[in-house]
């Protein structure tokens, strides 16, 4: 519905620099998640956009008009709080009607019915928030935010207080509603699975800055920084030295071993543009599911099984090697012959390695 442009946002609380430089755009009907570790400034970003705090620097424009100086009540944004913040003295219907009532153009009663339909809670009109389960509260909070037909929906870790099963089903429901309404949505989470499964694009944040903003697939498969590579998914990390670069291949020496990588796959955009030269110190990342227990010609090392952890379809195998401990996620079928102490060969394809210049 709307186009949000955020440019150069900065915000400090006393000595704490919560945001250093945040810039991104959110297209019409797009679903963008802000993903990052605790304290990286996700909530602060959302609160600045909603108008609960004022930025020290930067611009926020919605549909081409700056909203930085508007009070929150004039911004027409829906906000879903982590703690839901339902009005405890009002019943469900009054909570949902609150925003719709303040917006003259909406017929309140019909709107309440529509929204309760939308979130599957027909018949709960008279309940007080205290009489709802936490999953129901969450859906009412969503309905309340949607009632005044906001231009933009902001959600701050809306599912973090719920158990895993419920989280998954509500996640699907939120995505469904968002697509149905074609509502531009900014969704904060520190759960990468949530971010990957929900979003059109993900902005990965770290200490008040955005490290990478891209589609879930790009973020997962082509992380642009070492931080993103280690934060998204689970990867094994090695320190090594570049020994040669030629024919689109890069050789990296880690301990006694020499690994070869495909240049096009293994380098971030920045690194590809610059020259990687022999002697450079690098970090090599290999995602746990890209390690294989079948012997291949390239990039193979011998290892000893330390522990096999059953996870259903797949299993996690902890390995001891000469270059440190490794973690591999393999199909459980492959682990039937393994036991603690078994000797195996572990390898990865040249396209599975990701390289970053060591700081």
């Amino acid at each position, binding site marked *: 519905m709307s186009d949000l442009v955020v440019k150069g946002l900065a915000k400090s609380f006393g000595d704490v620099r919560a945001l250093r430089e945040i810039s991104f755009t959110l297209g019409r009907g797009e679903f963008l998640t802000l993903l990052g570790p605790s304290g990286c400034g996700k909530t602060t970003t959302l609160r600045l956009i909603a*108008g609960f705090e004022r930025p020290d620097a930067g611009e926020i424009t919605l549909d081409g008009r700056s909203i930085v100086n508007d009070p*929150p009540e004039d911004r027409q944004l829906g906000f879903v709080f982590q703690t839901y*913040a*339902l009005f405890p003295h009002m019943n469900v219907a009054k909570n949902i009607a609150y925003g719709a009532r303040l*917006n003259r153009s909406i017929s309140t009663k019909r709107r309440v019915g529509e929204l309760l339909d939308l979130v599957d809670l027909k018949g709960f009109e008279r309940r007080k928030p205290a009489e709802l389960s936490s999953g129901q509260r969450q859906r009412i909070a969503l309905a309340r935010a949607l009632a005044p037909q906001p231009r933009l929906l902001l959600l701050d870790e809306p599912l973090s207080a719920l158990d895993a099963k419920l989280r998954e089903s509500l996640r699907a429901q939120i995505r469904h509603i968002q697509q149905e309404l074609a509502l531009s949505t900014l969704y904060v989470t520190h759960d990468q699975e949530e971010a990957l499964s929900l979003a059109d694009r993900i902005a990965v944040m770290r200490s008040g800055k955005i490290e990478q903003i891209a589609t879930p697939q790009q973020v997962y498969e082509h992380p642009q920084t070492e931080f993103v590579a280690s934060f998204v998914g689970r990867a094994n990390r090695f320190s090594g030295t570049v020994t040669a670069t030629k024919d689109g291949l890069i050789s990296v020496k880690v301990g006694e071993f020499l690994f070869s990588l495909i240049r096009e796959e293994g380098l971030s955009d920045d690194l590809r543009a610059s020259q990687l030269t022999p002697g450079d110190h690098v970090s090599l990342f290999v995602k746990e599911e890209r390690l294989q227990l079948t012997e291949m010609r390239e990039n193979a090392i011998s290892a000893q099984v330390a522990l096999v952890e059953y996870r259903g379809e797949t299993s996690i195998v902890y390995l001891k090697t000469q270059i440190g401990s490794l973690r591999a996620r393999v199909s459980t079928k492959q682990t039937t012959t393994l036991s603690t102490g078994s000797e195996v060969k572990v390898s990865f394809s040249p396209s599975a390695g990701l390289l970053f210049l060591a700081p």
Partner: protein
Amino acid sequence: MKKGGFLVFIGLLAFLGLVFYQPLFSVLRRGLTEGGRWSLSPLATILTDSYFVHIIVFSLKQAAFSTLLSLGIGLPGAYLLTRYSFPGKSAIRSLTVVPFVLPAVVVALGFILFFGESGWLNQWLMSVFHLPSPPLHILYSLTGIVLAHAFYNAPIVMRLVNASWEGIDPEIDEAAASLGAGGLRRFVGITIPLLTPALLSSAALVFIFSFLSFPIVLALGGARYATIEVGIYTLIRTLLDYKLGSALILVETALSLSLTYVYLKAEGGFATLTQGSRRVATYPLFSRKASMCKMVIAAYIIIAAVFFLGPISSVLVDSLLVRGQWSVESYRQIFSLGYNPFLGVSPLRTVLNSLFIGGISTAISLPVGILIAMFAVRSHLPGRRLLEAILMAPLAVSSVAIGFAVLYGLGGAPLHLSGTLIAIALAHAILTYPFVVRVIRPVLEGLDQSLVEAARSLGASPTRAFFEVILPLIGPGILVAAVFGFALSIGEMSATIMLMRPGLGTMPIAVYSLLSARQFGAASAMGMILVVVAGIAFVVIDRLGKRGVGCRTLW
């Protein structure tokens, strides 16, 4: 804090400076001057004169005994409340608030009627055991004072210790048991150390209350048993010696500030304890099985019931008894417009005075208390803890001293408040606003800030958000604070007596005058009005106070 709020807060500080800090400072300064010059001689007089040394020592001594007896009566009660279940348990827990709203002079009256030489207890003992003369000589002695203070303070001990005890996670005790510790070892090694902060803070609180208590000592002590409070009153109101009176106030304030400091230290230890997820297991008190233990408990309950119900019932009975006959004559007397020689005005006038003073003082203490609570919860100013402590100072200054400060600082030019009901109302407002703060503060703390933000993001202006979201949520808390402040004002006698002029009498003063004149019927009828006001306050606090306004917050 926004700019507007900041200005309001400055205005508040200026107001309190004018009506409280400045008058109090001029009183304290008066105690340090001689012939217009700074001097330590008034202080030296107080600290060397054997009479004053005697009353200082007596004040501390009676406070110590009162504390011990309050613990002695309150701790078994706390144990029963924690470990046993019985019908009426939650009612008893709620009733522990009552001493806070029950005027001390009514308790004194009840004690005279019940424990006095010709009181109900002595009469009953004489008729049961065929005694020729009253066996108990309790009143007008240290014992009487200490008993009355225990009546007042044992419920506080009971409530505070019970709350802390129930807050102890039973798993801690179970962990000790699983490690092999027996019942006694667990009690001594686990329970007592965990209860120590509650024990210390309730003891400190009782000590302060008893140390600063005035109406009970005045009415039950007789001439020989004066405390510092009574000494100040006598110096200033009878001997008109402002210099020595002020010096005595200085000594008293120094002592009470130190005691308050100890109390706040002890109270700080509370926070870490309330983490219990599961409740302590309780045993039914009234089961078939009789045991030695049950006998002891039964004896305790009977003695406690007589001790707490006797004095109050005596007031009720005496108000309805005229020369051995049931009659409402005493009430008719109280609601008459006729001049009463013992009061200097009509009794009805004192009722109206009390209502007027209560109204004005609540109208002042409520906004003052709310503003301070908001400041305490919202502000991020450096030094705000210290400022907060200073703002709560009236808690640590005696009522008699505050009464005199208002008289001395505001009685003359430019306000000329001397001899007005406004002066009394101001003194009451100063005395009660800290309690308003203590009621409102946790309510504000419990208010989720994101509720306001939610309302704003849904399109509500700040004003709308205040009226539609904040006010409905804190409204009950404000009502509780108002009722509590009003009840405290209605029952207040200490500051009032310092500011009293003929015609300005209030209900508690009337009770005191009538009981001094041995007009027990009329005193009891007037006392019953105060009991009813206290009862209404109790019901409001109990009903509305459920959420947030916990009993612990009152002290």
